[in-house]
């Protein structure tokens, strides 16, 4: 009774945040300026713009679903868990909203702590190892990013005589020498690429996913990874334009290799959660190809992919969590032929899978189509090393093709074929579980069939 009250209370708070956002969404974009310790260069300036409005919507949409998902998987210390959920939601929203680099950093770094506890307290067998890895990987990048932020602040102070960490002020310092810019950009990118993650900085992610409880995995894949994407699009690329031009080729290469690498690794996994974790790495690689290729189409494609992947991977992790709650196994071999016994779950799993592999009519298709088209366009317009550019675009394309192979392999082995244990008790999705899956697939299909609604507002992304 007590636990249920806390669950519904958290759900209610999250829903009201979502409702509030939907009410003000018409007024966007807008900025809100709250002076706070301005002599220290700090402020609480908020802005809703094309960079963050869909990510904020995704956050506000996924968190109530995560709370619903936690009903069956979190049984002990429920109040602490929901406190961590709310804390995590607020910090993630702060990361997306704040326009001051130091306040952004504070939210970014502090959002590690609730996640640290969610994995560490409610995780699986190797949860402590997973928390250490998660913490140490993510904080290494952020410390270097902080020194870069301070360096930019000092540069601004020395040029203009006042202290400010506002993004719009620091953008004025983009006349730094390319070599300095490259170092600073490396510091920023390290923090963001660890979070996204792009190989070779990805090794924390599979372990964190496998050990995290289902709600933790949903937050991790659905939202936390997008913080890195947002950081690259909003801060890194505008702050260091010349350095980015210098390194663009290498970055695209890194991202497209990441797309293929993640997909290949997903292909050989036997643990269902690991398949989806590695597929996240692959999808994020493709997404970053879009970000690095640049231009309105590619960036909008990347943003659509961020939302699409957030919905699909959160749904897939939830579905795997449903299987795990029922049969206490995540290995592919222990399942088979579930379609006969669990038709509802199978239907939704396949719908989510279709979005993950970019099937037309789902949001995944819109995203991948935009990214791949613009990356081939980019390669076509290259003056030199055109063939290398095409090779990179083909690499990104093969990542998408591979995603179809490994996801359909999962579907074939888990849901088709012979039923492994016919005598076991099978229970299909309950009303609560159906609700979560329906909401996720509704948005996937809506934006898949009517991408225009979303793309219209993403025009500000350049």
């Amino acid at each position, binding site marked *: 009774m007590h636990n249920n009250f806390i669950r519904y209370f958290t759900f209610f708070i999250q829903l009201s945040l979502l409702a509030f956002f939907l009410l003000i969404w018409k007024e966007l974009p807008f900025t809100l300026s709250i002076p706070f310790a301005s002599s220290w260069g700090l402020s609480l300036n908020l802005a809703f713009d094309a960079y963050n409005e869909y990510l904020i919507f995704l956050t506000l949409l996924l968190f109530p679903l995560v709370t619903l998902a936690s009903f069956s998987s979190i049984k002990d210390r429920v109040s602490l868990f929901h406190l961590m959920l709310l804390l995590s939601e607020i910090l993630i929203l702060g990361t997306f909203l704040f326009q001051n680099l*130091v306040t952004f*950093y*504070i939210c970014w*770094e*502090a959002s*590690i*702590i609730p996640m*640290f*506890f969610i994995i*560490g*307290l409610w995780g699986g067998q190797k*949860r*402590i190892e997973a*928390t*250490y890895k998660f*913490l*140490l990987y993510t*904080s*290494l990048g952020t*410390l*270097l990013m*902080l*020194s870069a932020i*301070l*360096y930019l*602040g*000092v540069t601004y*102070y*020395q040029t203009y005589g006042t202290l400010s960490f506002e993004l719009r002020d620091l953008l004025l310092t983009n006349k730094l020498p390319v070599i300095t810019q490259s170092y600073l950009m490396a510091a920023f990118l390290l923090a963001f690429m660890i979070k996204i993650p792009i190989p070779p900085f990805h090794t924390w992610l599979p372990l964190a996913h496998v050990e995290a409880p289902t709600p933790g995995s949903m937050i991790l894949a659905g939202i936390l990874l997008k913080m890195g994407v947002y950081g690259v699009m909003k801060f890194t690329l505008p702050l260091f334009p010349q350095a980015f031009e210098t390194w663009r080729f290498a970055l695209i290469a890194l991202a497209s290799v990441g797309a293929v690498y993640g997909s290949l690794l997903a292909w050989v996994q036997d643990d269902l959660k690991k398949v989806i974790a590695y597929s996240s790495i692959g999808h994020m690689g493709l997404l970053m190809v879009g970000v690095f290729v640049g231009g309105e189409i590619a960036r909008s494609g990347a943003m659509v992919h961020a939302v699409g992947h957030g919905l699909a991977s959160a749904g897939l992790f939830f579905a795997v969590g449903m299987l795990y709650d029922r049969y206490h196994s995540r290995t592919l071999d222990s399942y088979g032929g579930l379609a006969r016994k669990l038709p509802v779950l199978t239907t939704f799993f396949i719908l989510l899978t279709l979005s993950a592999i970019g099937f037309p009519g789902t949001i995944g298709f819109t995203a991948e189509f935009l990214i791949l088209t613009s990356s081939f366009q980019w390669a076509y317009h290259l003056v030199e090393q055109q063939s290398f550019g095409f090779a990179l675009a083909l690499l990104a394309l093969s990542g998408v093709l591979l995603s179809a192979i490994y996801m359909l392999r999962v579907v074939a082995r888990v849901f088709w074929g012979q039923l492994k244990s016919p005598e076991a008790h099978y229970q299909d999705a309950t009303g609560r579980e159906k609700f979560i899956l329906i909401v996720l697939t509704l948005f996937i299909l809506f934006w898949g069939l009517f991408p225009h609604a979303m793309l219209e507002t993403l025009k500000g992304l350049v």
Partner: protein
Amino acid sequence: MINDLFQTSLPESLLALGLILFPLFEIFKSTSQKLATFVWSIMVTLALGACFYLLSTMKGAELCQAYSGHFLVSADLLKIKIIFLLLTLPLGLLGEKYFMNPHKYYLLLLSSVYGGMLLISAGTFLTLFMGLELMNIPLYALILNGPKKSKAYEASMKYLFIDGIVTASFLMGLALLYYGTGSIALSQWVSNQGSLTVHAQFGYFVVFLSLLTKLTVAPFHFWGPDVNEGSSLRIVYVLSILTKFALLFVLWKVTFGMFNELRGQGLLIGLSLISIFWGNIAAYKQQSIKRFLAYSSVAQIGYLLLVFLLPQNEQMNLTLLYFALYAPVLLLFIWGVEKICGTNDLLQNLEAQGRAKVLLSLPLLIGLLSFAGVPPFPGFFAKLAVMFSVIKAGYPVVAVLAFIGSYFGIYAYFRLIVSLYLNSQPFQKTCKN
């Protein structure tokens, strides 16, 4: 303008009055903890009030000299004293349980605080040395009354010997400086920096090294963990906050721009980075909370030494800010540890306590996150301010290295958080001891 001798040293005089009051307890055979704490708090508060009063009478940057230049008062020095007394005041809240008579504890503590106040106001080598001794000698006795007698004796003897040797070399350094400059006034020494004789340079070097040893800057930190281990937790606070606070201002006074003169920046950067790295790395392996805190304070001193790279006028405020953010957190941490572990300071005792004692473990969590420099806790802002200034002074690489050093600290501090919250089984004692 305050010319009056009595007025200039009013805060110190009030503390001295307290030093006279406490022996009266002996006469009346009072063992009341509350009364002793009350008198202590009143005397420190009065001294604090006197500092505020003096500050209100000071005009701008004027410098008052009293006792023929041995004793200096200025608005800046008064601000330092106010922070120092504010850091001292909470010790009354912690109380004392290892002394037979609480008033003896407070007498010794007050005498140490008095020494610290003299150090801050010192105008010549004489007052400097007197303040240093007054601050340190009571600590020998305070350490002696630790929770475990054998450890406490060891710690006290170690502190006595090491500190004795270091103080002797400090005195020798001062003598050489006197020989080299012909004056015992600090101002004289500062203005003579340009033309230093070999004696003065060597003397300065000796003074500098002794101060570093007293501050437990790595690699001169070896005595710190041992002494910490033997003393009670409130003395750990005194050792890592109060003495270091006063000593840093001594360093501030005698180095007054020296690092540019003698090209000592390299040395300073090297020492502070070694402290940050070693303090954070060695903290990871500790089994005792007090040793852990000792290494943590080695790392903090590393960050504080970086402050000396900045222009003279920025050093003081930044140091004050750092202590004002760091000390309350340490105090909270110590309070939590004492409530949870009592006299047994092994880290094993913290295991799974986050679950058993939810509210009491919160100060520990806040303390650890703050030491690790995780936002939005105070330690983060302290480090942020220091690093910003270091980059502003033109040393971005040093700041990056210092951040990497504190990265190791994250590992060490989160190890404790993991054992507090994530370990499900409390530590079981396998044998009787």
